[in-house]
């Protein structure tokens, strides 16, 4: 595929978009793990939710 | 009515007695104007052309300087609690406070304009046009800024964040303020069109400002 004289601009656009999306996904995934780990730690320390269910119970 | 008049009177009295606000605002305004010749060099024509822009920028930034304590001061000493509880609708009380603030801090800027116009080599028409647009536009700045000032109660301090929140919202006022002044000075567009939009913006802000501020105050207390 020949993209002409501006290949680098086009590539940068696509790569930047990919990078930003990957960063967003990574942030969300890491955040999810962090919160889960905290909930687990809290649960181990014996804290119970008002509904009486386990902290990590998200179903 | 007594209630609102009392509020306006109190706020103006405090502003004048403590001083800070109005004077610092005017001084900052002056600083901006004095600085410009050094920035653009000794080119009088250019300076004149930039005159309205400089004055408007100065006014916008000066109003930010004084706004951030509008509600936080009352919040910290407990007055805000009583104002929220009173039989006066909070929206009206907010509008009264903004009006008092404009009288104490915005009006001095309008009054100072003719003096500063001299420094910028503006002629009488131009000065008059700028002063008129400032008179019509600075209330809008105050009423928009009031929203940020009310948010500052929840945030527990204003400062730079308040400026960041408020400045983008006041861009339209700046645009039409400068445009109307330019139109009066160099043409070719008529002064009326941008000026009436400026007035319309002010009117819109008179409605939105108090409502938004009252909402965020009601929710911001604790």
């Amino acid at each position, binding site marked *: 595929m020949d993209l002409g004289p501006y290949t680098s601009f086009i590539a940068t656009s696509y790569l930047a978009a990919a990078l930003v999306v990957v960063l967003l996904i990574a942030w969300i995934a890491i955040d999810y793990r962090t919160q889960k780990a905290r909930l687990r730690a809290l649960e181990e320390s014996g804290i119970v939710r008002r509904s009486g269910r386990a902290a990590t119970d998200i179903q | 009515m007594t209630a609102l008049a009392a509020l306006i009177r109190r706020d103006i009295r*405090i502003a004048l007695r403590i001083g800070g606000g109005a004077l610092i605002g005017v001084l900052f305004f002056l600083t901006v104007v004095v600085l410009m010749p050094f920035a653009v060099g000794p080119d009088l024509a250019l300076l004149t052309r930039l005159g309205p822009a400089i004055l408007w920028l100065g006014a916008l930034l000066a109003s930010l300087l004084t706004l951030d304590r509008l509600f936080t001061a009352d919040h910290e000493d407990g007055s805000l609690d009583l104002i929220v509880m009173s039989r*006066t609708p909070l929206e009206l009380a907010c509008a009264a406070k903004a009006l008092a603030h404009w009288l104490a801090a915005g009006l001095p800027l309008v009054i100072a304009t003719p003096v500063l116009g001299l420094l910028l080599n503006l002629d009488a028409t131009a000065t008059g046009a700028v002063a008129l647009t400032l008179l019509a536009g600075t209330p809008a700045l105050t009423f928009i800024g009031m929203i940020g000032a009310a948010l500052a109660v929840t945030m527990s301090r204003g400062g730079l964040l308040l400026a960041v929140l408020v400045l983008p919202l006041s861009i339209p006022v700046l645009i039409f303020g400068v445009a109307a002044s330019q139109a009066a000075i160099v043409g070719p567009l008529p002064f009326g069109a941008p000026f009436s939009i400026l007035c319309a913006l002010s009117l819109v802000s008179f409605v939105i400002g108090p409502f938004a501020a009252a909402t965020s105050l009601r929710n911001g207390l604790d």
Partner: protein
Amino acid sequence: MQLAPRLFGHDVRCVRGGREVFAGLAFEAVAGEALAVTGHNGAGKTSLLRLIAGLLLPAGGTIAIEGSEAELTVPEQAHYLGHRDALKPALSVRENLAFWADFLGGGTTRPIPDCLAAVGIAHAIDLPAGYLSAGQRRRLSLARLLAVPRLLWLLDEPTAALDVAGQAMFAGLMREHLAGGGLIVAATHGPLGIDTRELRIGA
């Protein structure tokens, strides 16, 4: 014949900063009665007063006054006297009180010098409020309750900073208010000097 006004709360729940302070609280007071809210530090006395004053939103339950002017909300019929005294140091004692009288009262007010005399700071009438001692500031705040008549007084540790004579004076003022058919809800750690019904929060 109209019933005497009655303040009541029902199943009130309070959450602050994501934390439950109390729940299932019920209380009531009829005209002429004072309710003393007690409890350890952090139990939620101030929070309850602020809920009644409409300055906090209840997470559940209702608070209302029945038998009084129907079109007014509870906060609009109440005076709130908190830890912070709503005084501007730059204004004089007279200006401070006159402002609140005008702002809250809208006409139906008692003359300023009278109110100041009743709380014992008439001599300081033209002093800036910033010059007052802690007890004098508190007295000035109390004067607000006299300047504008309101059915319900919400008082948060009102006797703090008052000297012995001041506490007696204040007990007298409260007695008068109750005798006139008023209602008082006061958070306190010590005796108020009047007959009260007690509401204890937190174990």
